[in-house]
């Protein structure tokens, strides 16, 4: 794998954030989670957001994914600014353009693996049966055991559940996928497999991926690593590949 030194210039801008701020609470209890974040992500790029707990990583991907409103600055996703959209338009935009992978997978336990994967398609308006057929195809693409398609999430291993979650994030062909700690609940080997899968499918589809992680073992899969601290991006690095497996081997780009 080769990593670009800066955002691939020939690629379309997927996310552009400038001076993004977000404060939780008011008065003495107010906590400023984002203090003016500048970030650009292009299609075909896998950007990792790293940093200590409470530095604002999750808040930033929440703002980028349109599940949380920012207080200040600008942030556009594929030239769409959530602040200019209604709540319903934002919800529909998420359904059309954004895929999610969560740390705890968030698979609905009473639905089968195939049904879980089909939900984004059903949300977009597709009928259930063809949606489940497409979901099965996507499950096969992510290497999910065909015999397990009708299994409940609780009958699956962590790695299998994450494959289902990845299939769910990809099935409706979103332009941007946001992942929150996708490997923290997995062992090293499964984590690597999951990241290989995500990287392969993301690049093949020419979409952007933003991955929030603490897991230094997967840094090598990033094109760029944005380091956050106290609500700000403090540096952007490119990891040394393919052998590098921790942040100490990464090269600072700018700060």
């Amino acid at each position, binding site marked *: 794998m080769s990593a670009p030194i800066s955002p691939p210039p020939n690629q379309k801008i997927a996310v552009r954030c400038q001076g993004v701020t977000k404060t939780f609470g008011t008065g003495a209890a107010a906590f400023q989670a984002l203090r003016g974040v500048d970030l650009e992500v292009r299609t075909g790029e896998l950007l990792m957001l790293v940093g200590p707990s409470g530095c604002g990583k999750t808040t930033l991907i929440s703002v980028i994914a349109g599940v*949380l409103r920012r207080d200040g600055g600008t942030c556009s996703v594929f030239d769409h600014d959530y602040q200019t959209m209604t709540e*319903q338009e934002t919800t529909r935009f998420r359904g059309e353009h954004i895929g999610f992978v969560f740390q705890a997978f*968030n698979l609905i336990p009473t*639905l089968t693996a195939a049904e879980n994967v089909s939900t*984004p398609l059903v949300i977009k308006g597709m009928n259930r049966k063809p949606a489940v057929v497409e979901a099965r195809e996507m499950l096969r693409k992510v290497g999910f055991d065909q015999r397990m398609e009708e299994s409940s999430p609780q009958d699956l291993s962590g790695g299998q559940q994450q494959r289902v979650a990845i299939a769910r994030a990809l099935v409706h062909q979103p332009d941007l996928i946001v992942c929150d700690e996708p490997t923290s609940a997995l062992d090293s080997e499964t984590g690597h497999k999951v990241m290989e899968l995500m990287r392969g499918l993301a690049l093949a589809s020419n979409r952007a991926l933003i991955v929030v992680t603490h897991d230094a073992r997967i840094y090598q899969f990033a094109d760029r690593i944005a380091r956050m601290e106290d609500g700000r991006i403090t540096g952007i690095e490119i990891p040394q590949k393919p052998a590098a497996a921790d942040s100490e081997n990464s090269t600072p780009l700018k700060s």
Partner: protein
Amino acid sequence: MYYYALKMLIGDRAKYIGIIIGLTFASLLITQQSAIFAGVMSRTFSFLTDVGLPDIWVVDPQVQYIDDIKPLQDTKVIRIRGVTGVAWAVPLYKGSLRARLDNGTFQTCITIGLDDETLIGGPPRMLSGQISDLRRNDGVIVDDVGAKGKLARQGPNGTRIPLKVGDTLELNDHRVFVVGICKITETFQANPVIYTTYSRATTFAPQERKLLSFVIAKATAGEDSEVVCQRIREATGLMAYTPAKFKELTFYYYLKYTGMPINFLTAVALGFIVGITISGQTFYNFTLDNLRYFGTLKAMGTTNSTLLKMILLQALIVGAIGYGLGVGLASAWGALLSGRTQIAFFLPWQLLLITAAAVMFICLSAAALSIRKVMKLEPAVVFRS
């Protein structure tokens, strides 16, 4: 998404069954208690139901309900016959007389005295004998519940031998012969009912200056019975009611002056509270348990209106199942006991609608809390582990 909403609901077996049980219990209690109340209330005017032929009942103006007997003079019958539009009018006696049983105890019986000539006002269905047998000397007809129950004879081994045609009975110190057994609508007082002729009944009854309980009459063909009632009121100073009006008067008397409504309402309210508490709480907990998944669906692009419809569908489905089971159990209970006991159970379609409305109210109240929670849910919750 609605199919998935149902799978989410049914998949959580414990809560699903808990909600259904709560709603079934509420529906059962509401339906059963309301049906017993309706049954008891319909028995208050069962005599009016059984005496089907007349369309006018004439009583003392002070009478407030069917069992509120304020006797009239016998001559009132003749005055009523003279009112324009009256085809016929006959006397009817109703009173309580004591029957002496074989073992020496006494049993109060409702005694009905029918017009000697026409025998109008007799029992609606004869099980043995004929109404005309009342013309036989000292003949009486006994209702089957009384014959098998409170008036039954004591057998040698303590068994009860039902009263039958040919048996004798001592009614207020007068020996009478059973000439027939009849089937009547159960009475509110649940005392045996004895039919005899008017002249015989007034002979058996303790002597008073006036003994005529009602004058029952029929309007001539083509005459509006309401109009004829009005004419009777004006001509005689007595009150004249159509059977429907007299039933209404009786029904509202019991509703207003007895403790029955509040007693039954308490039981119905209990069912309602149990439903709200168990089902509402369990449904709300079910939503709380699934909040993460509702948040996930919201983040993935499900609109608030779709989530609202999903929760409403879940509530309506458990409501429909709980209602169906509750009403079914109440109906089965009613059907099982109605033929074997004297339980009052009357389940008209209006009661089914009222129960349905109550159960739906419980479900929608529970859903409202859940909907509020989900509507206010920030989709960003999905990123909190």
